[in-house]
């Protein structure tokens, strides 16, 4: 799965400035330190553009996995935030078992 740069930037911005920042960065501190929404957006953008792996899921969702960052991004076109981004406890297994 590959996204155009424009689509990737639009999706990364929506996710970074949606619920995912507060839930996974600010509250759960999954990254390990507090980062800004702009930094989060950049991590999401890099994952969308240069994932180690990506694959389509049910309901027109798409998962993008960055092993370097341990970051999983799920694009969901019908979600108001266009998806989510988080650092799963066991990222590769989480990614591979998504449907």
């Amino acid at each position, binding site marked *: 799965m590959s996204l155009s740069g424009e689509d990737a930037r639009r999706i990364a911005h929506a996710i970074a400035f949606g619920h995912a920042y507060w839930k996974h960065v600010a509250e759960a501190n999954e990254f390990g330190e507090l980062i800004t929404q702009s930094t989060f957006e950049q991590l999401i953008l890099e994952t969308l553009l240069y994932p180690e792996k990506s694959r389509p899921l*049910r309901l027109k969702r798409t998962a993008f996995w960055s092993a370097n960052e341990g970051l999983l991004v799920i694009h969901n076109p019908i979600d108001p935030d266009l998806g989510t981004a988080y*650092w799963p*406890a*066991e*990222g590769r297994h989480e990614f591979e078992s*998504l449907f």
Partner: protein
Amino acid sequence: MNSRAYSNPQQATETGPFLASTEAVALPLAGRQALLIHQSLNELLHGIRGIHVFSQVGMSKPALKGIFDPLSAWIRAQEADADGLPIATFDHPFSVAQIRALRNTIELVMLDLGQEEFSTRTGFSLAEAAALLDRFNTALLYPLRIDRQSQAVAH
């Protein structure tokens, strides 16, 4: 609805109202429900951080993996419909302890992912998950023979 909740119906009167935790219960699952359970287990085992699995779910992580791995293999082997859902029914008996753990798993994942993420991460709605919770609860409460249709609540 279950056609037979006990492997041996006599056992209900012998052991009192509680099902023995190791007893096998027939609980055939539509492919859609089987996949929802799989996705919930995936979140519990691999996604959500900070869960104390045994104390919060009532079953150890390896024991849950013992449910997850065969279910995963079954799902991958099935023919899927246009929505990516397994067409076949998962007709594998669960123990009472497993049903209780699966019920707890789904509830925990619903609450952790919440309205904002449940659908994006699992591919199912919270309403579908709630319906599955109801089905598990009905199976677990089968010994009480509750007639939900005709028994009114007295206040």
